[in-house]
Each structure stands twice: as C-alpha cells, then as structure tokens.
C-alpha cells in the first residue's frame, strides 16, 4: 500500500463515519449491530496484523487485550448516569482511551517475554497470557466474575466504530510505510541481520505489541458499549483465533487484505445463519432445506482454514506468491 494521501484518507473516513451516524436511526438495528461488529473486527485484525503480519511475531492472545480494554472502559462509564450528548461522548472518548492504555500496559507485559521467544513458543505464551487475563477477570467479583458485567451505556455508534477503525488503519499503515517502520518487516524477515543493521529488534517488537494491544483495548471498549454485556469467557482463546484467521486469510502484512478478511469473516456466520433459516427454496420440499449449514457452519469454518493453509498460505487477497516467511 502506497499510502501517499494518508491524512486525506483518515479525515475522509472519519467524516463519512460521522455522516453515517446521523442517519443511524434509519438503518435496521440488526444491520447496525453487524456494522459495529465489522468495525470492531477491522480494528482487531489490523492491529493484530502489526504484531503477527508485519513484525513476524505470533500472538494468540489478542482477545485478552480486548478484554482488558472492554472491562476498563466499562468500569469507567458505569460510574456515570444519564448524560447530555456531548458529555456522554466526551466521557466515552476518555473511557476508550483509558481502555486502550490499560491494554497497552498489558501488551508491554506480554512484549517483554516475546523478546526471548519466537514462533510457536511465543504463540503459546501469548495464549497463556490471554487465558491468565480471563481467569483473573473471572475471579474479580467487583466486575461480576464469571457471571459477567452489564454495561449501562450503549454509546458505541457508527462514528466511533468507523472513525477508530480508520485511525487504526492510518496508524498501522503510517508506521510500517515509513523508513522507521521498515524495521518491523526487517525484524520479521531476519532478526539477526536486522540487529546487525543497527535495528533495535527489542524495541521494535515491544512497540508492535504495545501499539497492537492499545488498539485491541480500544476495540474492547467499542465492543463493551455495543453489546452492553461482557463476560470473561467471551474473550477466550477461540476469539483470539478468530482474529488470527482474519490476518491469515487477508495475507500477513497486507492491510487491505486484512480489512477485507475482517469484513468477510464477520459477515460469513451471519450469512450462513440466514441461509440456514430459509424455510423453503423453490424446487426443494424439505423444511429448512439448508438447516445443515447452520449446524455445521463451524465445521465448515475450520475446514476452510485447513484447506486455505494447504492451498493458499499467503492468504486470499495477496498477489504475491508467499509473503509469509520462516
């Protein structure tokens, strides 16, 4: 991605998000929430792509950072009652930022062991961190423990989701496309050579983790204030894998591909659900003729993942032969 008109893109996307949010009450609420999910998935997948795709680390705990952001922001906004439009959005902004910072702190903690580990070892440690975050939240009675936490305010809207998705894309793309940011890819390609070329690989890896976790925290805040109910179990290992799959499907280190994959994979389960809900198809007499799709959609999903790895490990949207390096 060339990214010459970065700022124009950023401002344009935010303005569009704002305009769209003005017409939100004309959109079917079912779709509105799917749009929120798409925006949140984009933030998660693009930020994870900085860690897994560009820097070549392998995090399997991105949902853990999301949980930190979701709980932190929800605890803040739950302190407030009904607020005016401006005050509500102001508080929401502060809460999202706080959630992002809390997650960034967690990212720093995970980033430190990442300095010594690579590949599958790192994957399992990040997975472990994600699980530890989940267990800690389950044991915190103040935030509802395993029962979950009700979030009072449904402040997430199109402006916030798409504005912040745009900011995420802008930050990640600006970083990796700068001279400074080529260092991320250098670390991925050959760590020893990168170090020999004066690149402080430690700093780059930790930066990737902290920035990635920050945006996962923001996505967590958006998620909490869209669903209005969060449980520690909702941010488990399976959720992390779902975001990893978006990055893989989009092509590691390919921001546009990853955005497309995030959209596609958020819509896919909805689409399968709709198909399986069809009562009658012309020519088919059985009731719910496509019902099996609903029952087997997760099997299809996992099979797709295997087939994709066997046939197109570089992702669906990558033109290059393979962008995944050893």
């Amino acid at each position, binding site marked *: 991605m060339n990214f010459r008109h970065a700022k124009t893109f950023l401002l344009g996307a935010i303005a569009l998000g704002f305009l769209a949010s003005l017409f939100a009450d004309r959109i079917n609420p079912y779709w509105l929430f799917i749009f929120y999910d798409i925006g949140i998935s984009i933030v998660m997948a693009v930020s994870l792509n900085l860690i897994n795709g560009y820097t070549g680390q392998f995090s399997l705990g991105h949902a853990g950072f999301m949980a930190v952001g979701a709980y932190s922001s929800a605890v803040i906004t739950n302190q407030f009652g009904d607020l005016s439009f401006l005050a509500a959005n102001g508080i929401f902004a502060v809460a999202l930022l706080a959630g992002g910072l809390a997650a960034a702190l967690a990212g720093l903690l995970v980033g430190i062991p990442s300095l010594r580990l690579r590949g599958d070892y790192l994957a399992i440690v990040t997975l472990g961190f994600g699980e530890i975050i989940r267990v800690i939240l389950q044991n915190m009675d103040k935030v509802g423990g395993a029962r979950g936490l009700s979030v009072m305010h449904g402040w997430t809207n199109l402006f916030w989701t798409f504005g912040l998705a745009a900011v995420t894309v802008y930050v990640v793309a600006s970083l990796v496309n700068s*001279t400074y940011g080529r260092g991320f890819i250098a670390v991925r390609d050959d760590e020893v*050579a990168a170090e020999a*070329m004066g690149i402080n690989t430690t700093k780059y890896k930790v930066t990737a983790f902290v920035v990635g976790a920050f945006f996962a925290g923001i996505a967590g805040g958006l998620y909490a204030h869209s669903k209005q109910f969060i449980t520690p179990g909702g941010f488990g290992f399976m959720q992390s894998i779902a975001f990893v799959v978006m990055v893989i499907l989009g092509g590691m280190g390919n921001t546009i591909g990853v955005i497309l994959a995030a959209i596609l994979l958020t819509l896919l389960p909805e689409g399968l659900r709709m198909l399986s809900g069809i009562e009658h198809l012309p020519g088919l007499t059985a009731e719910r003729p496509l019902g099996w799709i609903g029952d087997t959609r997760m099997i299809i999903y996992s099979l797709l993942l295997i087939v994709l790895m066997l046939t197109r490990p570089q992702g669906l949207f990558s033109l290059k032969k393979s962008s995944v390096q050893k």
Partner: protein
Amino acid sequence: MSALLQLEKTTIRFGGLTAVSELDLQIGKSELVGLIGPNGAGKTTAFNLITGVYQPTSGEINFDGQSTVGCKPYQITKRGIARTFQNIRLFPSLTVFDNVRAVFHLHLRGDVRHALWRGKGYHAEEKSVADRVLELLEIFQLGRFRDEPAKSLSYGDQRRLEIVRALAAQPKLLLLDEPAAGMNATEKVELTRLIRFIKDKFQISILLVEHDMKLVMEICERIAVLDYGVKIAEGKPDEVRANPKVIAAYLGD
C-alpha cells in the same frame, strides 16, 4: 598510530572449547586487513565478537577509543561497524530499495511521532532518504532492480546488495565475512575490484574474512592468520605466505 579497532587478549570459551584465545588484533583507519585460517579456526567467531553477537569471556575490544564489550549488536552498528554474512542474510521479502532504506533509520532525525504525524518535515526527510538510497544503489549498479524483492536477485547481485546495505549504515569499519564464497573466477575478479573501489570511494577500514588465499593476498595490506583460535602469524602478504607455521596449518601438519 591510534587504531580504529583494537582487540586485546580477546578470548571466548564455549564450555570446554576455547574458540578464540587471547587474540590481539589492530585495524587502523582506512586499512584493509585480511583474517584467514583453515576451517574452524575461529574466524567467524572473531567476527561475532567484534559485532557483539557473542560477548568475550575475557579480554577487551575497543572501537574508536571506546570499549564495545557489553554492547548489543545494534549499538555497535550505530557506532560504526557494519557487516555482511557468510550465508547471505538480506531481508528477502523487502524490495532492493527497502533493504537499503531500512538501514537509514539510523540517520533519521525524526522518530515514530514524525512517521505518525506525516507533516512537512517527515515528507522532506523521506524524500532525502529515498534520494540517498537511490544514489547508493546507482553506484553499485543495482538501481534498475530497485522494486524487485531482494530474494529474486541473482547470487552475485545479492552479495553486492548485502554490501550496499552494510554501507548504508555509514560505517567506519566494514566487516566482510567470506564475500567470495560460492563465486566463480570471473565473479571473484569483479569482487576484488569492488572491494578496492569501496575502500577508495568511502575511505573506510575493511576487515575481510576469506577462504580464497589468492584474493586475500591480492588486496589486503596486512593479514592475520588464525589456527585453532590462536593467532599464529601476522604481517604483509608476502611475509605470511612464506611463514612456515602458516604453511603447516594449511597443509594440515
């Protein structure tokens, strides 16, 4: 003469094995020194000591008047030592241009904030980096490959690109680890010319580890010989060639 690089009794042990033992070595400004020896003599280990990949068990390494012991490889590179690798280690998925550009972060005035804000200063700096990268690539006839991924270059071009990438760090000392490995006779002649050219054009010191005796004898001003981690001879090419110890080591006496 104050040496640019000075190793004093530098020793490294791996368990019971002393890979490099009490090595004394000096490299002056704009000097071209060769480091030779049979297989497993400790040449690459010496390289890894100088570049900070390994830390010496005992002894001292000074560069430009300051010790480098305890420094990380990237810090040593910042201070002016750049290297190539025996088995080429480019950034394979980056383009030729970006391989060199990635090293220019060393000379950036702005940092991450610059890259995120993307103001005027950022664009001006990126432009000047791009100009300097292209200039370097042109000098070494790699300009026409600028947008090719590094892994698609021919072997000889990859070797050259690795040297260009090291030069982009603007080192005072360039370490070349067996640059002639895997090259045919014509390519070696070309390489000899290239090394001389670098020394004259950039006015830097070069330490060359090499297997090919002919090439080393031809271009080095001074040669040190390692055998089993110990320096057994040092001097002008002709002196080294005539040294009985060296002959014995190479004939496997």
